[in-house]
């Protein structure tokens, strides 16, 4: 067989491939905690994620939510921090915790054969954590020090400031931590937050992997009797307080050799009718390696190692953000090129060839993203927390297949207005 290297092999357009979001199964524990599961995979492993509405949205004092979440593993009535870690690590399991804006999670990854030994220990940290003062002292000291180091990094500063500009310093999406916050943090704050938001809190459970047949019974036995989901969630609202000044250039390190550039505008959440189409437009703009920003600013001009744009994944409201780190002497030129690319999208309709490429790329990448039970449950979790269903998935797929160049241009004109963007360069 002599290959014809000059022309590409026949392909099936990814848009014509079968695309299915594997449905979850669900049931409810005795105490009303909903459980969503996706069964699958070849390896004898699984993950269980407990989602609590314990993000910084619900804290009254800065970093109480994040600290409470972090310190879940730092001591219960029966075990000190070392013993907790040792228990999970002995079984080769990972107990991770993460704090987000609305939610905070506790996630167990383990081999199936050890699940029975591990679940009660997960419940223990939810009901019997004691937040030892000594652990808090160590945590504060080490976090303060980490913060000091991060404050030397231009990208860290830029990420904090751009959120502050878009949402305001008193909004959960815009606020950030100072050394003073750590100093003012009291053990009593954590104990109180823990009791309300975890022990007596609102919880949703997700499980995925090669699930054992008696998973429901095991979960019910361990978590179904806890005092969860009795109280309805407080309806907390915040006002946005966006910055007045649109352009900020900051020197954080006079000897810095790069600048962190952030260009961002407020954008509605995924319930807005424009969301899916703008997500498509974002891909063309700066959403993947073949995007306009990457092609122009990295692959043509070499100003940066990478430049990206994305819609932030927030529940209440969002932002459209361009971010990059560029050579100090080409920061101005980079910013200028970003605006130029916005202008081109407003002026010229995207060509058919590029449209097809992005459609196929997005569908192919979606098929890849849905490969495996952990990936599928992650998508379902995101949907459930954002209050959307599989109808959202299928309509987004339809958007990818059918959105037109004219629609995209209209959206560019609506949203890619330089005047609507905050511009920040931190050297």
């Amino acid at each position: 067989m002599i290959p014809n290297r000059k022309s590409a092999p026949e392909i099936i357009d990814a848009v014509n491939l079968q695309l299915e979001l594997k449905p979850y199964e669900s049931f409810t524990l005795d105490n009303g905690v909903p459980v969503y599961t996706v069964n699958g995979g070849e390896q004898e492993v699984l993950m269980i994620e407990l989602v609590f509405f314990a993000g910084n949205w619900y804290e009254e004092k800065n970093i109480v939510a994040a600290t409470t979440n972090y310190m879940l593993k730092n001591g219960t009535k029966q075990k000190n921090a070392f013993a907790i870690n040792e228990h999970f690590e002995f079984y080769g399991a990972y107990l991770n915790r993460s704090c987000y804006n609305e939610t905070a999670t506790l996630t167990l990854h383990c081999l199936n054969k050890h699940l029975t030994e591990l679940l009660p220990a997960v419940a223990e940290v939810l009901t019997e954590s004691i937040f030892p003062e000594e652990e808090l002292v160590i945590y504060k000291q080490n976090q303060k020090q980490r913060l000091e180091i991060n404050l030397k990094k231009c990208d860290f500063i830029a990420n904090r400031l751009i959120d502050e500009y878009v949402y305001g310093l008193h909004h959960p999406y815009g606020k950030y931590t100072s050394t003073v916050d750590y100093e003012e943090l009291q053990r009593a704050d954590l104990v109180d937050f823990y009791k309300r938001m975890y022990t007596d809190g609102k919880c949703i459970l997700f499980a995925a992997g090669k699930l054992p047949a008696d998973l429901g019974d095991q979960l019910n036995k361990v978590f179904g009797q806890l005092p969860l989901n009795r109280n309805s969630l407080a309806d907390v609202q915040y006002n946005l307080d966006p910055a007045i000044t649109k352009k900020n250039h900051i020197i954080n390190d006079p000897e810095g050799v790069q600048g962190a550039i952030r260009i961002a505008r407020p954008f509605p959440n995924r319930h807005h009718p424009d969301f899916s189409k703008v997500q498509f437009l974002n891909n063309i703009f700066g959403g993947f390696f073949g995007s306009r920003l990457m092609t122009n600013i990295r692959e043509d001009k070499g100003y940066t190692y990478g430049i990206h744009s994305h819609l932030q994944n927030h529940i209440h409201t969002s932002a459209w953000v361009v971010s990059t780190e560029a050579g100090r002497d080409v920061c101005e030129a980079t910013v200028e090129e970003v605006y130029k690319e916005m202008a081109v999208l407003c002026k010229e309709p995207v060509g058919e060839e590029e449209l097809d490429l992005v459609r196929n790329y997005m569908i192919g990448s979606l098929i890849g993203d849905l490969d495996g039970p952990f990936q599928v449950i992650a998508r379902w979790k995101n949907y459930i927390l954002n209050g959307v269903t599989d109808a959202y998935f299928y309509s987004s797929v339809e958007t990818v297949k059918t959105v037109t160049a004219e629609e995209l241009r209209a959206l560019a004109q609506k949203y890619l207005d330089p005047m609507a963007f905050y511009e920040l360069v931190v050297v």
Partner: protein
Amino acid sequence: MIEYNRFVLDNGLRVLVHEDHSTPMAVVNLMYDVGARDENPAKTGFAHLFEHLMFGGSVHIPNYDEPLQRAGGENNAYTTNDLTNYYCQLPAENIETAFWLESDRMLSLAFGAKSLSVQKKVVIEEFKEHYINKPYGDVWHKMRELAYKVHPYRWMTIGKELSHVENANIDDVKAFFFKHYRPVNAILVVAGHVQLEKIKQLAEKWFGDIPMGEKYERHLPAEPQQTEARRSEVYAKVPVDAFIKTWHMDARLDKGYYATELLTEILGGGGSSRLYQALVKEQKLFSGLDVHHFGSTDKGLLAIEGRLVNGITLEAAEKAVDEELEKIQALPVNEAELQKVKNKTESMIAFEDMSVMNRANSLATYELLGDAELMNTELQKYQDVTIAEIQQYSREIFRKENSNTLFYHSK
């Protein structure tokens, strides 16, 4: 147990096929037997720069990414001190596109001047972003130079200095390509929703006519055994002092590697590890601590690094580290402690193997080490490590004259 088939084309290209029909995707992983250790000491960073150039167009195809994206695919690549790896994932129906793209750039690059000049700039920005414009960004540049005097592990993959990248020219690029990027120096792994027979045909069709090239014979200078402790001090504009200390360890295929990996875990893996408990939690000397090793093909380094709590001296931190290391040499670890790190290893392998892409990558890595079957026998080697071996290797490794200590002072 990972099943696969292996065959070799007449031009020496090794091909491994791992079928997994639970996924709709296919993975094509092409690994080249060249890394930063194969560079000319006056032209470091070249293997990595070259990786960037592999996306700058090949002899028949002006752009690698576009047709792949059109076929619904995604790709990436990485360079280490030992090897360079290119991988892509796409819907299995379109796998031939990956063969077309990968074989054309193995046949020959386009060697465009523009690609070279732009990618030099991109890599320079990458260098700045990760190693210059970050506090402590140069720690490993300095540590490698301290620990290696002869072996090319003495420089980082990104390169020893910016000027080496700046000075790369098109002749270097061509010479490097025809020396290293030949079928006889490459391993192709195809995995996912694919059939062996079909892959055999595609491999023959697309790669079969590429000239074999010359087998690259590596003659790297072995690092002589270190005979006295080395120390170095750095003063930099960072907020807190940092401590870093390394010891030479066994190569990837040596017997001691497995015990050393478990030893590393016992010392620093997770919240119940010895150093974390003693030095971060009990003695409160470090605000964070990391114990790791290179995992490199040739003799690597085991490293302990951490940032100090304000007010603690580097001398005090070092003394406390030494005390822990003396303990592990003096007293055997207990059964449960060893079992813990073996269980962790088992679990880590199981989670890694969930993804087809990881499996393809591992098969290529083991084949490059000499035998893909290692993938299925690794776990047993960890299980077989004994308490006595942990003690034996800890005594061999943590000898004073085998150590390199870097005090990174805040100025």
